[in-house]
């Protein structure tokens, strides 16, 4: 039985899905049986980040009962993934009611199931956090992201979801809140500081995951370090 880890952020736009997708790729490359599931059913983006052509089965098909979840697992960029639909007709009215049981099936078949959740604290996010055993908080080093991150931590604690730590994304500005201050305020480990890195945007533009297209970029190196820490290699 593996572990399900929600990748969460207190607000959209912090780079959570890019972090989640690349972390899945790197964990897979290290020999960990990893699945990434797009749990952001209103704004799915894992497929785009992994460079998957749309048209196959999605988490939306699983949630609506139209597809067997195991058949929706695809291989992409060296990892396994269940991506979300991007068609408006599938997004409207999508529900996560069946998500906990689907996730349990996946957790039985993989070492780690990363679930990219919706940003913020809407009902969908709360359902995903409550369905997962553990949570990784992605935030940017600014006061808004930190404050909203505290709200995610409060919800995770109430739901009994273990908080593994925080990943600070887009760091490197002199006006960043320092990582040690964030760790101290939030009382959690900062597992990684992912730098602001133009190759991330370039990779998104090119439709290739940054850790695949640019493995020597500062972001890719740090995501490997994060993966090492998560599986206890460092």
């Amino acid at each position, binding site marked *: 039985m593996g572990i399900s880890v929600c990748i969460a952020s207190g607000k959209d736009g912090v780079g959570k899905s890019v972090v989640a997708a690349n972390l899945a790729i790197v964990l897979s490359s290290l020999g960990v049986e990893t699945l990434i599931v797009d749990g952001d059913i209103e704004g799915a983006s894992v497929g785009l980040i992994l460079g998957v052509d749309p048209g196959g089965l999605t988490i939306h098909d699983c949630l609506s009962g139209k597809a067997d979840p195991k058949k929706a697992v695809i291989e992409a960029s060296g990892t396994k993934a269940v991506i979300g639909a991007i068609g408006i007709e599938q997004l409207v009215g999508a529900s996560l009611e069946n998500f906990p049981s689907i996730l349990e099936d996946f957790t039985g078949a993989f070492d780690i199931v990363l679930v990219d959740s919706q940003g913020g604290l809407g009902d969908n996010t709360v359902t995903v956090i409550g369905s997962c055993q553990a949570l990784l908080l992605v935030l940017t080093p600014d*006061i808004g992201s*930190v*404050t909203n991150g*505290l*709200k995610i*931590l*409060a919800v995770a*604690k109430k739901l009994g979801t273990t908080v593994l730590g925080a990943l600070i994304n887009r760091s490197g500005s002199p*006006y960043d809140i*320092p990582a*040690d*201050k964030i760790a*101290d*305020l939030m009382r959690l480990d900062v597992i990684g500081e992912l730098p602001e890195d133009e190759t991330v945007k370039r990779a998104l533009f090119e439709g290739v995951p940054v850790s695949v297209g640019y493995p020597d970029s500062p972001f890719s190196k740090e995501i490997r370090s994060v993966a090492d820490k998560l599986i206890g290699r460092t």
Partner: protein
Amino acid sequence: MSTILVVDDEEDIRFVLGQMLKREGYEVLSAGSGEEALEMLKKTRPDLILLDVMMPGLDGWETCARIRSQEETKDITVAMLTAKTSDEDKIRALESSGANWHISKPIDRAKLIDTVRWLLESPPRRHGHGKDGVEKGGDS
């Protein structure tokens, strides 16, 4: 030399904090209540306020809100220094009360000094500008 105003109803804490901060070369002022702090702010402008939350009379939340509501004091850097350390308390400090940061009691001397240094070296956050922007936007 930066000036720090310590606001706490407990005299022992004011004394200990004062000693710690003076040793680092800061000028320290102290107030035993929110009311006293607001009165002091009419005459003096510290670079940083370390503000306790649980005080009789005006508590730290309300004191901070009043500091933010006055043109002369709204941009002073305020850190809540408190034993109220739940996530909800921290959110309240940073969001509703408008504090710049939250420091948990009991005090860890090294962390406190490091945080004070960081807050004083950071540019002050400007408060109360969003409201004007919205009103102007609505008029146009």
